[in-house]
């Protein structure tokens, strides 16, 4: 069951990722990115990261992608003009050679690494909001506070950059 779920959502993630890169229109790319993030959230659940899976859906697929879609629609961003490829050879050979390279690298990584126990759903239960919150508010307190300052700076920067000129 774990293998089936992993393969299914990994395939969805890769297909959406490819679609993101090849689509001409930014809206299609944005929707593909939502697909990638959704399937990654399922994979996080399989890895026992419940809080991160929820945050992935809420923060990434919810907030950030809405921001993207909003800007795309605001700017009425159309497709891009087709740039002619430099070489026919590159277009023909590129994708098969990349597949060979990736397959070879995956094989070598599989061979070289020691074989740890596989990932089983439910084997790691330390990813609950309680555990993550405890780590954030004890061990990672200072970085957490610094991020709040970072977000404040980002808000101010976004307002300053995007405001209308007031005379």
């Amino acid at each position, binding site marked *: *069951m*774990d*293998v089936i779920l*992993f393969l299914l959502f990994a395939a969805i993630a*890769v297909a959406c*990722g*490819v679609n*993101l*890169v090849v689509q001409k229109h930014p809206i299609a*790319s944005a929707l593909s*990115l939502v697909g*990638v*993030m959704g399937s*990654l959230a399922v*994979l*996080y659940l399989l*890895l026992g*990261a419940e*809080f*991160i899976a929820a945050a*992935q859906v809420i*923060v*990434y697929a919810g907030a*950030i992608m809405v*921001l*993207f879609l909003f*800007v*795309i629609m*605001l*700017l009425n*961003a159309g497709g*891009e*003009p087709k*740039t002619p490829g430099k070489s026919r050879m590159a277009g023909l050979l590129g994708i098969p050679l990349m597949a060979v390279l*990736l397959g070879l690298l995956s094989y070598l*990584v*599989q061979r070289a*690494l020691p*074989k*740890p*126990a*596989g*990932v*089983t759903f439910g084997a*790691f239960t*330390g*990813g609950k909001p309680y*555990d*993550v919150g405890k*780590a*954030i508010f004890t061990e*990672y307190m200072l*970085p957490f506070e610094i991020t709040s300052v970072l*977000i404040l700076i*980002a*808000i101010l*920067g*976004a307002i300053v*950059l*995007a405001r209308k000129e007031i005379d």
Partner: protein
Amino acid sequence: MTMTSVPLSWYLILSAVLFTLGVAGFLFRRNIITVFMSIELMLNAVNLSFVAFSYQWRQVDGHVYTFFVMVVAAAEAAVGLAIILTVFKNRATLQIDDVDSMKN
């Protein structure tokens, strides 16, 4: 390894593939918004690695790093999209080839 468990390396390979796709989109696309989304894809790929290693070591630190990456990505998206808005307001284009004031 029984057939009911997925090797950890599969997660890492998926992460590498997604990161490569993000790099490809970053390098080959000409629309500034799509380039920006490719960066988000790369961040997501790295997050998957963090969570996978967190599982492997049975520690929650990877989740915390992922959380921070998400926060920084949100801040980055807000500022980056504001910059894109400004670029569009000043130049009326979203093609990165047309934004070349600092070239040469």
